[in-house]
C-alpha cells in the first residue's frame, strides 16, 4: 500500500530551482534513504513532505490525503508526518518528559495520565526511561536526539522523516541513534531519511534514492545501487563518500 506519494513536485527559492519535478512513492512500512550531495534538494524535499516548505507545483499525498498547507491544519499534518531534525530542536525549558508530553496534551487534547503513559512507553523504546525528569542540556547529543525521536513518536505519525539526524553528533554517539531507527524500521515504521551514513543506508533501507541537481537521478535496492551504480554522477558520489 502506498503511504506517501509525490507527483511531479517543483520548488524554487527565487530564481534557484531546488526541486525540478520529483516523483516518489513510499509504501507503508518501507524505509527509504535519500542520499546526494549538499544542495541536491534532499532536505528541501523532506521539508515539503511536512510543509515546512510549501511546494510550488505538483502533488503530495499521504495516506490518500492531499498535503496542502493552506487547507491542512498543523494538527492534521502532525497526525500524518513526524519529523526529527539535525539539530534536535528539543525545548530547552522543558524536561524530557514534558518535551514528549507537550504536543499530545496541547494539540491532541489527551488526558494527562494517558499521555504520560505514552511518554514513558516511547522513552522506553529509545532507551531513556530513566531520563524522564532531566533537562535536555543535561543529556549528550545522542540522548537528545533519541528524545527528539520519542517526542515525534508520541504523536503517532504515519511516517517519520529524519533530516540528517546524526550529522550533528560526535562519531561515538551516532550508533545509539541509528540503532533506535533500526529498531523502528524493524517494527514496521515508515521512515524517510536524508542521511550521510552510507553504511546505515545500505544495511537498513529498503530503497536508496540518489538525488542530483533537484531530480531523482537513480534509485533502487541498496545492494544493487551501491555495488552497481548506473550513472557517472552516482559512481562519483559513492567513490567520494565511501
Amino acid at each position, binding site marked *: 500500500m502506498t503511504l506517501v506519494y509525490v507527483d511531479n513536485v517543483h520548488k524554487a527559492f527565487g530564481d534557484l530551482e531546488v526541486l525540478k519535478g520529483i516523483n516518489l512513492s513510499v509504501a507503508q512500512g518501507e524505509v527509504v534513504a535519500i542520499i546526494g550531495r549538499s544542495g541536491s534538494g534532499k532536505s528541501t524535499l523532506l521539508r515539503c513532505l*511536512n510543509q*515546512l516548505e510549501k511546494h510550488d507545483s505538483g502533488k503530495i499525498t499521504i495516506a490518500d490525503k492531499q498535503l496542502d498547507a493552506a487547507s491542512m*491544519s*498543523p*494538527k*492534521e*499534518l*502532525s*497526525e500524518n*508526518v*513526524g*519529523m526529527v*531534525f539535525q*539539530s534536535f*530542536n*528539543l*525545548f*530547552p*525549558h522543558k524536561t524530557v518528559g514534558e518535551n514528549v508530553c*507537550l*504536543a499530545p496534551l*496541547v*494539540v*491532541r487534547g489527551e488526558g494527562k495520565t494517558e499521555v504520560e503513559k505514552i511518554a514513558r512507553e516511547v522513552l522506553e523504546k529509545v532507551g531513556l526511561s530513566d531520563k524522564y525528569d532531566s533537562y535536555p*542540556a543535561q543529556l549528550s547529543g545522542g540522548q537528545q536526539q533519541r528524545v527528539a525521536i520519542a*517526542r*515525534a513518536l508520541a*504523536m503517532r505519525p504515519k511516517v517519520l522523516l529524519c533530516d540528517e539526524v546524526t550529522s550533528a553528533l560526535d562519531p561515538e554517539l551516532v550508533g545509539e541513534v541509528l540503532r533506535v531507527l533500526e529498531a523502528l524500521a524493524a517494527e514496521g515504521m515508515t521512515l524517510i531519511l536524508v542521511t550521510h551514513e552510507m553504511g546505515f543506508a545500505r544495511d537498513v533501507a529498503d530503497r536508496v534514492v540518489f538525488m542530483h541537481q533537484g531530480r531523482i537521478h537513480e534509485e533502487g535496492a541498496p545492494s544493487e545501487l551501491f555495488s552497481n551504480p548506473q550513472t557517472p554522477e552516482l559512481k562519483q558520489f559513492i567513490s567520494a563518500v565511501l
Partner: protein
Amino acid sequence: MIEFTFWDILRNLLLATRWTIVLSLIAFVGGATVGLVLTFMRLSSSRWLQRLTALYVDLFQGTPLLMQLFLIFFGAAALGHPISAWWAASIALTLFTSAFLCDIWRGCLEAVAKGQWHAARVLGMNYFQSMRHVILPQALRLSIPPTVGFSVQVIKGTALASIIGFVELTKAGTMLNNATFEPFTIFALVALLYFALCYPLSCYARYLEKKLYDAGLR
C-alpha cells in the same frame, strides 16, 4: 536666612527620593504595558502595524528624552490643554520606556532559535500554541536581565523631569543648593542616592544574567 544642617539636607533629599521612585514605577509599569502591546503589534502579520511600531520605536530612540518631555509639556500647553509636570513626566517617560522595552522584547522573541518554531509546527502546534508553550517561556527568561538593566536607565531618566519643574531628587538638590550654596555636598548626596537606587538593580541584572548563563540558555 534659614540655616540648613547636614541632616536637614539629607532629610529633604530622602523625601524627594520618594517621588523619583514613584515616577520610576509609573514609567516602568506604564512603559511595560504599552511596550507589551507594541511588541505584539511589531510581531503581527500586518505590514502596516509593523512599520508603524518600527517608526514609533525609532522616533523615541532617536530623539533626546528631554525633547520628548518638552514637546509633551509645552506642546500640551500650546494646544490649549496645559498639563501638570506630573502628567507630562509620566507620559513622556512611559512612551520613552515603552519604545525601548518593545525593542528589547522583540529582540528576545527573535533570539529564540527558528528551529523551536519548526519543532512546534511539526508537532502540530498552531501559532498561538507555539508562542504560548515554546517561544514565550524562553523569550521571557532571556528578557529578564536586559529589562532589569534598562530599569536603571529609567530611574536616571526621571532626573530630566526636574527641568519642567517636577520636584524629585534632582530638583530638590537644585533647590537646596539655591538656599545653602553647598553644591558639592548636595550633589554628591544626590548622586549617592541615585547610586543607592540603581546599583542593586544593576547587581540583580548581572546575577540574573549569570543564572541564565548557567542554565545553558544562552
